[in-house]
Structure formats: C-alpha cells, structure tokens
C-alpha cells in the first residue's frame, strides 16, 4: 500500500496535466489568435528522412526561400512569418507526433510541405481539430473526401486524375491492348481503377488487371499472368522497389511490351537500379512545374543559387504554398483569425483577378483594393471545390538512361 500512494498522485498529476493539454488543443484558435503585428507561426512538416528524403529536403529549402521573400517584403499584412520545421520521417506515426509538437509546443497556425498521402491522411484530422490550414502534395483521392472543413489544400493532382492521364496518354500513343498492374494500396488501386474506367468508357478493353501484394521477392507469376494476354502496354502503379523487381523479371522474359509509369517511380534512380537497356522507352508521367510562369523563373533562379540544382515539382509546390498563404494573410488583414485567412486562399489564386507572380506584387495590388490571381511556380493554382489543383502533366520517355520530356499536357482546369 505504501508504494501505491505516490504512484496514484503521479497518475493524478499526469491525468490533470494531460487533460489541460487536451483541453488546450481543443480550444478554438480564435481564442489564441495573435493580435495585430504579431508574427504568423508557420509549421513545415517535411519528409526529411525515410523514403521521401530526396524530395523533402529541397521542399524545406523552397519553403525557406518563400518565407525569406515574404519577410524581406515586410511580412504579410505586416506580420513576419516565423518558421518551425519538423521531420515526419515519411511515416504517419512519426508525423502525428511531429504535428502535435508543432501545434502544441510551437503553436503554429498553418502546416505546409506535407509530401506522402499516408502522412497527409494521418495529420489531417489533427489539423482539422485544431482548425489549422494544411497544405500538401498528397495524391490519394481520400484527401479530397476527408477535407470536410475545407482547411486542406492539395497542390498535386489526385491519383484519380493521374489514372485518367495515363489512359489518355496510352490512347494518344496508339496503344490498343493495355494491361494494368498496381501495388495494393489505396493510391495505386485508385489509379488503376480510374485508368480502367477511362479506357473502357470509350469502348476500349483492358487486357488484364492485376493488383499485386507489397513486399514480395518475386512477381514472375503475376507478370506471366499479365503477359499471357499479350498487352502492348502495361500501365503500372508501383513504387521503386517493386518496380525494380517487376521490370527486371519482365526483361528476363524477353517479351516485347511498353510501360507507362508515374514519374516518382520511373526516373533516373530506376535507371540506376536496372540499367539503361531495361528501362529504355518507359513512359513516365508526372506533374511538372509551370516552367513558363514568371513565378517559376524567379523561384528557380533563387533555388539554383542556393541548392545548386533545378527544383523539382514538389519544391515548386512548397514554394507556392507559402506565397499563396502569405497573400491570403495579406488579404485577410492584420487581425484576421485562421478561418478568415483560409477563406482568402481561393480568392488570391482565382482566375479573373490581376495576374501576379510574386508576393510583393500581390501585396501592393491587394492594398490598392484589387483582386489578384497568383499564378505559381508549380501551376496556375486554380483550386476546386475540395481544395484540389490540377497542375500540368509532363510526359517523358527514358532514352539511353535519361528522362526526356516529350510533351506537356495542360491540367484539365
């Protein structure tokens, strides 16, 4: 009994502290909204380590560039942006901890830079509960249906759109008997289903569709099943490890066939894993930055000076997140709460306003009382009903180990 006593009090302490914390996190943000002139606390949740590491590090750099641009221009509505960065390790569980730290300890008012859908789907309930703006590059179609409060903004096309783009590219290239192979998760099964739906809508027929299990050491039997139907092209929704096994085993069969794959899998890292011969002629489809926009030119120049290589589409998207957010803060005014700022995100990017390509340009027009339309570095940023954008698609082919851009298909909106 004696040892029981202190345990009980510490448990009580723990409970009361926990309840206070829980209560604090439930309190609506308006209660804690900063008065005028106070800095705007911005959280960056990037995949610095883990599978997303190659993308997350440049994304954070892009966010820093944008924050510097806004602060150098005197801040948004007079408020400096104060950046707090966390690593989500490309894992939803680590991301939840990091997001809670950003919200409870750093008291951020918006979270930007989320890369994988798994993290996006795990973090969205938390940011929604706290009433925070959340900007991401996630592609799972569930992101749109889960975005119930309208606080999430998707800067990358959803996989439904990807599936349709795959089908359209296959048709343009004159393929007749496509087969579909997809990794068994919501993202790629979604992509496969939308591919099939789009292809069959116009009377085409998919020769076979195989959803395969993750983490297998061989996919030969799955592949043989698909190849037995003699497809002329396989639309393949895969990550790099399974794509490496599948493509190697396909090449070993000696059967002739083309592949259409997402750009985050079919890239130079895949060539490195498999060699030039196997990857020759793979069609790689990805969202591409709006390289014709003035915003891209100015951003990529600063990015190159800092990081010494061309920014990818995710870095451009991250840059746009901060600029769009800053413009929304400017438009909402110095004392606005988060809901009011969120309400302005669409307004400052909507088609019809005066075209702008930088924060300072937009700020001056907003102060003059004009409507603005920020055309970003990643896309023209026209948000749909669920907070989604459709950036342009780039269709590339792997030629002699290099990714060569063949054409750009404009986003459908």
């Amino acid at each position, binding site marked *: 009994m004696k040892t029981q006593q202190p345990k009980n009090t510490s448990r009580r302490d723990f409970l009361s502290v926990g309840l206070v914390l829980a209560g604090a996190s439930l309190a609506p943000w308006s209660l804690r909204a900063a008065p005028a002139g106070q800095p705007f606390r911005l959280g960056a949740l990037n995949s610095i380590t883990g599978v997303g590491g190659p993308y997350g590090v440049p994304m954070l750099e892009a966010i820093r560039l944008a924050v510097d641009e806004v602060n150098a221009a005197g801040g948004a509505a007079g408020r400096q942006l104060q950046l707090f960065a966390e690593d989500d390790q490309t894992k939803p569980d680590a991301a939840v901890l990091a997001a809670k730290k950003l919200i409870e300890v750093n008291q951020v008012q918006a979270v930007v830079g989320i890369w994988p859908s798994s993290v996006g789907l795990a973090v969205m309930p938390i940011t929604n509960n706290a009433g925070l703006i959340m900007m991401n590059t996630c592609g799972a179609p569930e992101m749109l249906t889960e975005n119930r409060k309208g606080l999430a903004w998707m800067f990358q096309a959803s996989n439904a759109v990807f599936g349709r783009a795959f089908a359209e590219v296959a048709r343009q290239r004159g393929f007749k008997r496509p087969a579909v192979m997809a990794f068994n998760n919501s993202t790629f099964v979604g992509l496969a289903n939308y591919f099939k739906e789009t292809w069959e809508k116009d009377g085409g027929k998919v020769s076979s569709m195989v959803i395969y299990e993750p983490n297998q050491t061989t996919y*030969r*039997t*799955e592949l043989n099943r698909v190849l037995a139907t003699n497809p002329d092209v396989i639309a393949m929704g895969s990550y790099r490890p399974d794509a490496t096994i599948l493509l*190697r085993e396909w090449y070993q*069969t000696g059967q002739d066939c083309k592949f259409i794959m997402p750009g985050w899998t079919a890239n130079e890292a895949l060539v490195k894993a498999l*060699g030039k011969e196997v990857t020759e002629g793979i069609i790689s489809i990805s969202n591409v930055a709006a390289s014709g926009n003035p915003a891209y030119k100015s951003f990529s120049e600063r990015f190159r000076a800092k990081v010494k290589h061309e920014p990818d589409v995710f870095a451009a998207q991250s840059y746009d997140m901060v600029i769009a957010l800053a413009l929304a803060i400017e438009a909402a005014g110095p004392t606005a709460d988060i809901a009011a700022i969120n309400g302005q995100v669409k307004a400052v990017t909507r088609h019809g306003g005066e075209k702008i390509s930088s924060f300072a340009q937009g700020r001056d027009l907003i102060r003059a009382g004009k409507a603005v339309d920020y055309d970003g570095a990643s896309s023209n940023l026209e948000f749909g009903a669920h907070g989604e954008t459709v950036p342009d698609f780039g269709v590339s082919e792997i030629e002699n180990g290099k990714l060569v851009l063949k054409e750009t298909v404009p986003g459908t909106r």
Partner: protein
Amino acid sequence: MELIPILNAVINGTVLGTLLSLPILAITMVFGISRFPNAATGDYMTLGAYTAVATQAWIGSSLVLAVVSASVVTALIAVFFYLWVFRALAKRSNVARLIASLGVAFVVRTTITFFAGQDQYNLEMGRIMRAWNWHGIRILPMDVYILLTAIGALGIAFVILHATPLGRRMRAVADNPDLAAASGIRSRRVMLYLWLLSGFFCGLGGVLLAIKAVVVPELGFELLMPMFAAVILGGIGNPIGAVVGSLIFGISQEIATLYVGPSYKIVIAFLVLLVLLLFRPQGLFGRPIMAR
C-alpha cells in the same frame, strides 16, 4: 488453365522454395537444439543482403565474393549475438528467448537503417540475362545458379548433420541435453557451431534473395511468418521437413497466383498448411514427441 503457365509457376516456386529452405533450415536447427523460434532469422537474412551490397561497394564487384562475405559475416554476427544474448538466457524459458530474439531482430534492422537509410539498394550482376525459352517454359540462368548454390549448401548441411562427429553431437544435444552432457559432449561448442551454421545459412539465403529481389530493410522480416509456417508444415526441428515444407509452401503460393488474385496467394498457402496439419498435426516429418 494450360500446362505451360503451371509449369512456369512450379519452376518459380521451386527456386523460391529451395532458396528459402536455407533460412528455414536455420530456424528448425535452432529450434531443435536451442529450443526457441528465432525471430531474428529474417533480419539475419537482411544483414546478409546488406553485407553483400557493402562488399560490392567497398571491396570488389564480384558477385561470388559478395555471396561469400555475406554468409561469413552473418555467421559471425549470429555467433556474436549467441555469446551476448542467447547464452545468458540459456536456462530461461523459451518465451524469454523468443522475446530476446525479437529484440535482436530490431537491433540488427535499425542498425542497418541507421547507416544505410531506407532507400533500396541493388546488387550488381552485370547485364541482366534473358531467360532460356523452351516452348514457353522459361528458365533463368541466374535461377539455375541460385538453385545449385542452395542445393549445394543444403547438401553440406545434411552431410554435417548426419555424417560427421559434430552432427552426431548436435543431434545428441537436441535429443537430450543432460544426457549429452553426461556423455561428455560439451554443449557450449555444439552451440557455437550451431549458431555459426545457422548464421551462415541465413546470410546465404539473404544474399541469394537479394540477387532475385531488391535490398530493402524489410527484406527478411517480411518473410518471417511464411518461414515459420513452412517450419511447422515440415515438422518442427526436422531438417528434411524444413526443405519439403518450404518447397510445398513456395509452389502452392505460385500456383495459387494463377487461379486466385495475387492478393490471396498467401491465403491459399496457409490453407494448404491448415489442411495438412489437420491430417498430420505434428507436421509432415515431425514425430509426436520430438526426438531429433
């Protein structure tokens, strides 16, 4: 379904089953002698695969050298963990050792990811070879080498177990450790050889798997459940049972892929296990009271 796809599936299942029978043999030997299911087996395989990658990166691109160094390094690490962890727990219950082996598994995997990261690696194999195509039946040259290596290693294992004094001592300790000790068999030395052999087979299995697949941190751990199932199927503690169990498991999975969706192939393999165990609860080669 025609015959040719089935034959291709059988060939594929045979290669995979023979390859996996190496770590499965390691599991069953450790279980027979040290009496616990070693959950670190999968991660020892991963270690072998990464050792091969490291060998190619730092020493030389020869695949044979990579295979040898993977097996040897993994064998030494397995002995190290025996001396550090499992020896101290020798008198504890087998549950304690099972939990400890899970700990070892995590230590191995996180140490690998700490240095190598999460991204995939590939073994360098020169040019990728096309399969020999014989009326639609496809046989890969690399698969033949893998199969021969695995069969060779299995042959050595059975010679050691059944034709050497060491094997006799191992079987004696497995049978009755106290009686073995009373007969003057030093169980410490038997244990050292056991872990050396077990680590060697795990490392070899891991690197052969890496040749077929890609090297990722979860390479071996993902296979742990099917491997345990194959051990149970063959009869726990029985080396021949391990090989046969592994082959049945591999082939039934591949044939199942032809008939049901690939998502359900593992289900069919477990269904085969279930039905066989209904008729032989002790496994194919197991005895009701384990006496090996």
